[in-house]
């Protein structure tokens, strides 16, 4: 699905990623953990194609294809989805209108016609039920005045609608109370299949109780310094990140 080889990336000449190697196969859930400033969110943005990051070395392959030269929207068309840590507001554009546009633009890129209205409606109904989303919510302006929980649920709703191959959840747990966390995590679990993959970026173990990873990677100073099974997350929760830093420096 996703293969990252020796990825180096910088922003404004400041090196942030210094040689990332990662392979994610269909059906897998990978957790990327690490202290603040280790490069977690940068990695998510670089995979999604945010323009302010310069890729200086290495490559990102999606299903064997190098996507380095693709614009963010082209990567999205190929099935990459990023759940934002801080989803932006777009006043006057309803959740429904936004997702409709996103779906139809993706279809257009694939040479398909717009999704028929009744089909769209059915899909919206189905996915909003899955995520326990109130229909009224869908007519509100995108993220405007949304609570932290609503914003994240809206991200997962869009993910459900777009059915990506690779979903990257960037700090989806931040700003969520325990109930909202459970709803969001349940949503992700329901959407998981043997054909898609999920990368969960998080600072805390908490979310991983609900979305159980197959692999846990620890990011430090722009490198993955340790990888292991899900138990690694518990170890990090207990011992913090300092022992990893020491291990790396030793």
């Amino acid at each position, binding site marked *: 699905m996703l293969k990252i080889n020796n990825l180096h990336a910088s922003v404004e000449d400041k090196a942030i990623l210094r040689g990332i190697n990662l392979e994610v196969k269909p059906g897998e859930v990978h957790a990327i953990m690490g202290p603040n400033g280790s490069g977690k969110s940068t990695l998510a943005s670089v995979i*999604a*194609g*945010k*323009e*302010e990051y310069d*890729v200086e070395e290495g490559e990102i392959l999606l299903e064997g294809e190098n996507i*380095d*030269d*693709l*614009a*963010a*929207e082209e990567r*999205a*068309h190929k099935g990459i*989805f*990023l759940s*934002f840590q801080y*989803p*932006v507001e*777009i*006043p*006057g*554009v309803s959740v429904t*209108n*936004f*997702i409709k*546009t*996103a*779906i139809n*633009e*993706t279809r257009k*890129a694939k040479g398909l016609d717009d999704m028929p209205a009744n089909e769209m409606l059915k899909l919206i109904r189905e996915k909003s039920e899955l995520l326990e989303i109130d229909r009224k919510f869908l007519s509100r*302006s*995108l993220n405007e005045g949304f609570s932290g929980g609503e914003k994240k649920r809206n991200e997962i709703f*869009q993910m459900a609608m*777009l059915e990506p191959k690779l979903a990257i959840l960037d700090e989806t747990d931040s700003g969520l109370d325990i109930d909202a966390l459970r709803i969001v995590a349940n949503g992700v679990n329901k959407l998981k299949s043997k054909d898609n993959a999920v990368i969960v970026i998080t600072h805390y173990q908490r979310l991983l109780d609900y979305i159980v990873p197959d692999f846990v990677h620890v990011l430090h100073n722009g490198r993955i310094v340790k990888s292991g099974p899900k138990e690694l997350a518990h170890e990090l929760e207990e011992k913090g990140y300092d022992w990893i830093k020491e291990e790396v420096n030793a």
Partner: protein
Amino acid sequence: MSKYTEDDLREELKTKEYEYGFYTDIQSETFPVGLNEDIVRAISKKKEEPEWMTEWRLESFKIWKEMVEPEWANVHYQKPDFQAISYYSAPNSKPKYDSLDEVDPELLATFDKLGISLDEQKKLAGVAMDVVVDSVSVATTFKKTLAEKGIIFMSISEAIKEHPELVKKYIGTVVPQKDNFYAALNSAVFSDGSFCYIPKGVRCPMELSTYFRINQAGTGQFERTLVIADEGSYVSYLEGCTAPMRDENQLHAAVVELIALDDAEIKYSTVQNWYPGNAEGKGGVYNFVTKRGLCEKNAKISWTQVETGSAVTWKYPSCVLKGDNSVGEFYSIAVTNNYQQADTGTKMIHLGNNTKSTIISKGISAGKSQNSYRGLVQVSSRAENARNFSQCDSLLMGNECGAHTFPYIEAKNKSAKIEHEATTSKIGEDQIFYCNQRGIDTEKAIALIVNGFSKEVLNKLPMEFAVEAQKLLEISLEGSVG
């Protein structure tokens, strides 16, 4: 991986050329340049006007000669040389036609290019059109249906001949000849325009629609529109404009007067897309318009405008709320790009008791343009319980444009309730990236954000106009595709 920065956005905005830039070669009859009493008389004679009209024009001309061009607006331009303009130009192919087959094929091709061919428009249910090309009305449709209801919808030149009593009674009552420099000029030299009368208690069954064009090099266009809604009647009037690309500046000074008698309602919607000048700020239309409506008891006037064109815009569609319980509304989207300058807004004059006004203004600035909202809410000492709500939002694209708000409030009655809200925002790279990440390219993303920003106003437009307006917003702001 493609980069997208503020610079790219600016670059992209710069490259959008005017889509409707072309010039139709129709034989015209044009007056020599310059303005004096003889020219005013000649215009009146050409149009076979009665004596009272000629006198009214001459009086206006005298007033105009004594006036100076206003300079208070937040716009800077080379003042037109009023003696270098030809004040009359009419397509030669007269007389009027009964069917489209008789219309100059060149003209029809022009409409085709604009995507507003009469054929297409005719098919659009419920739209009647009085098409104005270069000042003279050349085709009118749906006249019969309207006539059955007693509705008069014709060019103002015809109305002066056929319904002099109505024109004489109302012309200049809302916008007096001496109102301002451009209104005085228009009163002296107006070439043509539309006239509309809705009889008592009649609800006009269709949207009345006029397309204006400026089509002859160097001829200023001076439209005069008069809409009278008699007691208890209703009319929705659409005005849409495009103009061909020209290098020299073209002057446009229109006057629109609306009269809503007791319990009547007028909805007046405008889409204005005149040539805005090129990316360097060369050329473009000067649009100096005076639009005002008078509301008698329980009457309502709604102005809705989408202004995307013209190099310089000076325009304040206003409502005089004379009658008790009358209502005035102003919904506006003004887009400026490159070197365009717009100074636009409204005046709500509360004279009657329990009068209510609403102002929603959305300004979108890009490029090096300047976009100003200027509004006046005035409550007279005798107007009890007047209410106003104003909201002025500005959206900026890039770092070189300007958005300004000049709200004036004059309340002389203590019972008045006046609210004013204003916001300024900027299209952020984060918003664009968010859309990109969902598969929406930058051009579409900007359209989406701008349409969202303008939604409250777009919703006020009649359906078929709203679609056209959205298209215009996209054309005005986006980079050319492919």
